[in-house]
């Protein structure tokens, strides 16, 4: 198990390999479909984004509302491919880490390699468990989007696995290959 601080450093990203289990501590931003659309619309117009994306990590999540006494409600990953159309642009702007679940397009994998980034996976459907590693949450943009607003999370020992490393190795393919036909 590797422990890493967020924002990620280039030397950490270079060392990570598909299949590594990692605990993340620090801050990250949340964004899913609607927020991605707005971010890329701004970027295409050459306008500044509502937060500095350079070296940051985005978690694809739309959390459930926080019950009293909780920093957030249940907050597991959403399926990442829906963000694929927008991801290369964000990587170009300096995004370094993504957390989600599921496969990515060839265009995203190429952009991960080109910009030396990393795609992590969190366990889909383990949303109550994951919420335990989120210490604080504040909305930084698009409150009108409700669950889809961009939030800044402070996380402590957030459990993830490297799904696609900076060389383009893909854990889903490696794992499936190993157990296929058994």
């Amino acid at each position, binding site marked *: 198990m590797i422990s890493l601080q967020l924002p990620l450093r280039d030397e950490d990203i270079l060392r990570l390999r598909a299949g590594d289990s990692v605990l993340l501590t620090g801050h990250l931003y949340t964004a899913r479909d609607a927020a991605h659309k707005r971010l890329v619309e701004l970027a295409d117009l050459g306008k500044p984004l509502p937060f500095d994306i350079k070296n940051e990590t985005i978690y694809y999540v739309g959390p*459930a509302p926080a019950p009293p006494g909780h920093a957030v409600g249940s907050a597991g990953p959403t399926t990442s491919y829906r963000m694929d159309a927008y991801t290369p642009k964000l990587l170009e702007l300096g995004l370094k880490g993504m957390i989600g679940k599921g496969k990515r397009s060839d265009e995203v994998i190429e952009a991960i390699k080109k910009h030396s980034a990393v795609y992590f996976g969190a366990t889909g459907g383990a949303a*109550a468990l994951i919420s335990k590693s989120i210490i604080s949450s504040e909305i930084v943009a698009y409150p009108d989007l*409700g669950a889809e607003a961009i939030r800044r999370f402070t996380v402590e020992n957030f*459990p993830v696995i490297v799904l696609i490393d900076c060389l383009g190795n893909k854990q889903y393919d490696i*794992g499936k290959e190993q157990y*296929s036909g*058994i």
Partner: protein
Amino acid sequence: MRIVQAETIQKEITRLFLDAGVNIEKDVDTCLKNAAINEPSPVGKNVLEQIIQNNEIAKEEKLPICQDTGMAVVFVNIGQDVHIEGGSLENAINEGVRRAYDEGYFRKSIVAEPLFNRKNTGDNTPAVIHVNIVDGDKIELLAIAKGFGSENMSAIKMLVPADGVEGVKKFVLETVDKAGPNPCPPIIIGIGIGGSFEKAAIMAKKCTAKPLDYSNPDTNYAKLEDELLESINKLGIGPGGLGGRTTALKVHIEYAPTHIAGLPVAINICCHASRHKSCII
């Protein structure tokens, strides 16, 4: 004629969704625990253990099992000797959903219009409601909170009679293989065969809420369910899609009479967080 108050239906719907959102079905829990013991992949076993732990936390702290608390799908079997008083069935169900998603701190995931402006309705309504008129004076409610990670991986195809059993198997395996890690495996697969285009899809949806130890009473279909499960679990996708044996927990098939020219097949995929509860009023 038996009179049932609309408010009674609303309260039952609220209770069912509040229960479904945080308390995993006992059969799913048992199945996950058995799978965790038998899963040969260490990383797959770890995913199953996280899911089991997650479901315990959800139950103890009344937190949603998954942040995607789903689209509310309600099947109503209403006896023809029942009269609903004090409001409409549709309003009662939607009010029930509204209150459950508010009281339970569930996520509101429904947009009023799908294509042009996608504005959130803010209360997770409207529900998708399927009504059947049946004999008797009871109302049977089945509440399903359907997550869309798995819904998006579902598929329907109009096969032709010549495709036969092999055609069905091929379509199911292709669909599950293509879905890979996206629908949060281990999954539960509902398959509707026959009927018309929409009938097949509705049967598939209902299948996702059947008990995991239930098999189709027709031995041909029961055998097909088992064969499909075996083949799916040889794909190697595994828990979380990270590699392993436990890709699906169960395959359920329901069939219906169909046209001489047709063989509709609908596959509805449900994630391991299979959330559904039922009651009889």
